């Protein structure tokens, strides 16, 4: 039996953007609350809430689709 939801997401599939950002933004990227990406304690990126919400719904989908953020 596989247990409740053993769910390997092996690469080759689109990897989740948030997993990638954890790694490429220096490690220790904290995606806190809803709008701030920070490295260590330094706020680095303030993502507009709207863009972020859009990204959540499409997180596992292709991010290079030409979606628009007005």
């Amino acid at each position, binding site marked *: 039996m596989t247990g409740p939801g053993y769910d390997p997401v092996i690469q080759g599939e689109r990897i989740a953007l948030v997993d990638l950002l954890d790694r490429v*933004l220096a490690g220790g990227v904290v995606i806190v609350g809803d709008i701030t990406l920070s490295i260590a304690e330094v706020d680095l990126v303030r993502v507009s809430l709207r863009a972020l919400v859009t990204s959540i719904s499409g997180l596992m989908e292709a991010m290079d689709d030409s979606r628009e953020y007005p």
Partner: protein
Amino acid sequence: MGDVGDREYGEAALRHNLEDLDWLAQTARAHHAVLEAVAGRGPVVPMRLTTLFASDAGVTGTLQERADDFRRALSLISARSEWGVKAYAVKPSDPAADPGHQAAGPEGPAAGPGAAYLQRRRAQLTASSDARSEALDSARNVYAELSRVAVTSRLYPPQAPDLAGQQGPMVLNAAYLVADERAGEFAAATADLTARHRFVRLTLTGPWPAYSFVGEGDGAGQP
């Protein structure tokens, strides 16, 4: 290594672009694609996203000055890959639906709908807090067990629920550096742990370039 211009990567432009999620996503994916391509040909030390040098001489200078650091990093990651393991707390099922948790307090079922409700509610809260602490215990256990198969490991902060999607609260966000010949064993251990822990759901990602194991101060941590 590629040349970029001030218009996209100057200080002000970069600050702006890093706030543009589309730009960030595309740049991160492009960065990752380059690393993946190079990783197929030998060990590679990933740079952070938007690592910029003012000149080619700056690159060669850094490579020379920090040759020992790069050699150390290369020897750490050679024939090894990074794997990501995340654990999500599984929501407990409604205890009212579970005969084992049916109210059987001193008042009994005859105590009226108010008392019955309170009892049910108390049982729900207890079950939910039990499940939460079980999930955290499971996460610690999973982290420790998998560390035995890995060369080293590192913890990331759990991702925010909004970003993690509908999977429930994240209780573990770990990266492991695993010898390539033990990759199968690592995946099997992950599957085995997920079967043994009913309060967490595990996801395995990888192999990744060794992003999490080449920086300064990157080392093992405790949950």
